[in-house]
C-alpha cells in the first residue's frame, strides 16, 4: 500500500521474479490517490523471512507491506446477489449494513461505497454478496432494510444475473 504513482506494480513484481515467485492472483484498488494491492504468490521453498526482508527493503519508497503464509487451499466465494443501499449520507451506514449481513452469515464478496455529488448528493453502497445455502433472500433483505430504514435509506437485493452463452 502507498501513495499511487506509476511503477509500483513493476517494482513489486520485479522483486518477486528475482526470488522465483509466481503471482497467481492479484486484486488492486486506488482510493483517493492511495494504491493498495493484494497478491497470492506461490513462493516454492522460499523462506517467508527472505520474502519479507526483500519487500521491506522497498519500504523506503513509502510502500507498506504485510506478508503471511496461506494455509490450505484458497476457496473462491461466488456472489449470489447484488445489494444496494442508498440515500443521504450519514455516519454508520456501512456498519449497519455489514452488521445485518454478518448476523445472517452473508459474505461480502465485493463492495463499492461512494458519495455521488450533485444538488442532492446520494451515498450509494453497492455490494456483491454470497448468501449461505438455503438462505431466504427476502429475509436477508428485510434484515438489511430494517437496519437502514431508520437512517432514511432505501435498499434492494436481487440475484446476480448470469447468461450462459
Amino acid at each position, binding site marked *: 500500500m502507498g501513495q499511487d504513482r506509476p511503477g509500483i506494480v513493476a517494482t513489486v513484481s520485479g522483486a518477486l521474479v528475482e526470488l522465483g515467485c509466481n503471482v497467481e492472483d492479484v486484486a488492486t484498488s486506488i482510493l483517493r490517490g492511495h494504491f493498495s494491492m493484494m497478491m497470492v504468490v506461490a513462493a516454492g521453498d522460499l523462506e517467508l523471512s527472505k520474502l519479507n526482508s526483500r519487500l521491506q527493503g522497498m519500504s523506503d519508497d513509502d510502500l507498506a507491506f504485510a506478508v503471511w503464509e496461506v494455509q490450505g487451499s484458497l476457496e473462491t466465494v461466488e456472489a449470489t446477489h447484488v445489494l444496494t443501499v442508498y440515500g443521504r449520507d450519514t455516519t454508520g451506514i456501512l456498519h449497519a449494513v455489514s452488521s445485518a449481513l454478518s448476523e445472517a452469515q452473508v459474505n461480502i464478496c465485493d463492495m463499492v461505497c*461512494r458519495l455521488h455529488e*450533485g444538488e442532492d448528493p*446520494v451515498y450509494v453502497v453497492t455490494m456483491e454478496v454470497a448468501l449461505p445455502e438455503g438462505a431466504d433472500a427476502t429475509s436477508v433483505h428485510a434484515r438489511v432494510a430494517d437496519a437502514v430504514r431508520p437512517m432514511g435509506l*432505501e435498499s*434492494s437485493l436481487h440475484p446476480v444475473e448470469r447468461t450462459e452463452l
Partner: protein
Amino acid sequence: MLADLIDTMRAHPGCVGLAAPQIGVAKRVAVIDVTGHKLTGSCHGLLSLVNPDIREASGNVLGREGCLSLPHITADVVRAERIVFAVADQARWSEGFEARAIQHELDHLDGILILDRVAGAHALHARVRL
C-alpha cells in the same frame, strides 16, 4: 399530465423517457420516445403509456443507463432484449434500445431506480457530463 411529461422530456436533451413519479405524480403513466437516438434500431415513435405492463420478456443485455432522477450517476443494468408490452390489452412488441427505455420507465412506476438494478459492485459510474 401527458403533455407535461412530454414537454419535460423534450426539454432535456438526450432524455428519451419520463414517468409520472419522476415529476411527483403517483400515477402509472410514462412517455417514451427514442426516435433519432444513436442507439435506436426499431421504434414506435412517441409512446404515451397509461397503466402499462410487460407481458413477455426475452434475452438479457447489459447496458449503461442514466436517469434524470439521478443526474450524476450512470449504472450498468441488465434488461430484456425484446419485450411485449401492453396498454389496455393492446399488446405490442419492442426490442433493443426502445425496449430498454420502456423497462426503465415502467420500473419508475413501481418505485424502482437504476440503483436497484445495478449489475454488480462496480456497475455504478459518476456522470461527468450532464
